[in-house]
């Protein structure tokens, strides 16, 4: 039931607690139904908006340049087109990021690495595909080494066309993602 995740007690105490029963049902049962109930309350509305306002305004993207759009991603995070204004700063480890930006060519050798990074990210996570190469292989549609349909491997939320798109379009994509998080249209019911 995860007591040892919160209070640093050895894991055996965790199993011990799971054997107890409260009001006749086992503790894990009670615990999961209550969290389920709380999740439904959260889904209803006002609390959900607050959560999404928080998630919307502090989106951290993974520092991962993969092509021409990667170099534009530097500029998007740096001085003139400042993504920090929207609370969006680059982080280096996927554990602390919210959005994964596919910023360039996705090749056969890089696909497993990319999938590992995507899986390592904690749950409320989104994906932006920037540039033609990320959306559909772009000018390399017939290359033997490029993955054309990134959409089948990663649930991409925002597509930013352009080769490479201007940093202003990066910001527009970011605002679209924020709108999407705000209206809870990302179909992953966070």
């Amino acid at each position, binding site marked *: 039931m995860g007591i*040892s*995740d*919160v*209070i*640093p*007690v*050895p*894991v055996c105490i965790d199993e011990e607690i799971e054997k107890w029963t409260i009001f006749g049902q086992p503790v894990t049962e009670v615990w999961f139904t209550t969290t389920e109930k709380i999740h439904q309350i959260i889904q209803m509305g006002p609390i959900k908006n*607050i*959560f999404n*306002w*928080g*998630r*919307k*305004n*502090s989106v951290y993207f993974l520092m991962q340049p993969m092509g021409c759009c990667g170099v534009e991603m530097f500029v998007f995070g*740096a*001085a*003139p087109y*400042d993504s*920090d*204004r*929207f*609370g969006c700063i680059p*982080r*280096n*480890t996927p*554990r*602390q990021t*919210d959005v994964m930006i596919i910023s360039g060519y996705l090749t056969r050798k890089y696909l497993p690495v990319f999938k590992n990074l995507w899986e390592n990210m*904690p*749950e*409320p996570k989104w994906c932006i595909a920037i540039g033609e190469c990320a959306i559909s292989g772009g000018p390399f549609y017939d290359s033997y080494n490029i993955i054309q349909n990134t959409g089948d491997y990663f649930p991409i939320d925002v597509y930013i066309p352009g080769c490479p798109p201007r940093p202003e379009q990066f910001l527009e994509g970011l605002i679209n993602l924020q709108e999407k998080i705000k209206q809870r249209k990302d179909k992953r019911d*966070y």
Partner: protein
Amino acid sequence: MDGIIDTITQFAAQEPAIFALIIGIIGAAVLSGVVNVGAMLVIWADRKVMSDFCNRFGPNRVGGRWGILQLGADAIKLFTKEDVIPAGVDKGVYVWAPIIASAGTMLVAAAIPFGALHIGGKNYPLVVANMDISAFYVEAALSIMSIAVFMAGYSSNNKYSILGAFRGIARMIAYEVPMGVCVISVAVMAHSLNLVEIVESQTLWYAFAQPLGFVIFMIALVTDLGRVPFDQSEAEEEIICGYSTEYSGIRWGLLYFQEYNNFLLGSVLVSLLFLGGWHGPIIPIPLLDMVSPLIWLIMKVIIVIWFIILIRAALFRMRIDQVTDLGWKWMLPLSIVNLGWAVIVGTYFA
């Protein structure tokens, strides 16, 4: 006003135990609020002032004047982030690290006088546990964070974190000793280790009385906090995020938050020890005379924070062996020279 003070002092004299308990509980509640909000303001200042140095706007689209609500957004996001504990991690130590970090900083907050109230010509220090060795205690408690850093790094079974943990320990122990010697040389001049008495005895600020000690203490403090010239333990480029690579969500938030807690308390400590605490040229500022010492202290703390953030925007990061060399081969002998200077000046002038 005087009646209340007399009753309090009289009550404290009769039952010291209950008085200490009440002060402890009220202090814990107030201080955990004040210190945490202060640390959040320091995080916001770090991002905002940093982007000011870099000629760009900081977070300002989030809401509130100058992007104040950015921290609310960060906090909410971190709270609603999934809690991932990777496999192969030493779970007890992994979970214990943020708890020790925050407990350590709260212990420091207990003994630091956060300013004073000027009532009827006398300054009453705002401190919860007014120990007479509080300088020594605070300097020791500040280094609990290095234990938390090592626990976080070593337990998360990740090559980057292990390197970050070793580097964090090497960095902190290299500057523990010079920091201690600087505190002693301040205490030698003030003839006492109690922070309140140190502040009271600072007619001439110790930053001017012993400039070398002030410089060494600032460098040691910046190292203790892990700010840029000395942030090897989380050097983005070499070892990704150092000791907090495997931490995610609110667990990483706590570690990151305690680092800024230490930053705030460290800068308060510097302004108490070296910049004359709550003494200012015009003690009873005409309008708000009761709170004027507090305002002087807050101004000094803001200046120290601004300076440490400037360091982050302006200096390169040193290599870990240069940090340890600087610590052992330069800081330690110089701080002992400063101790000699404090002893000589202390006997003839103080």
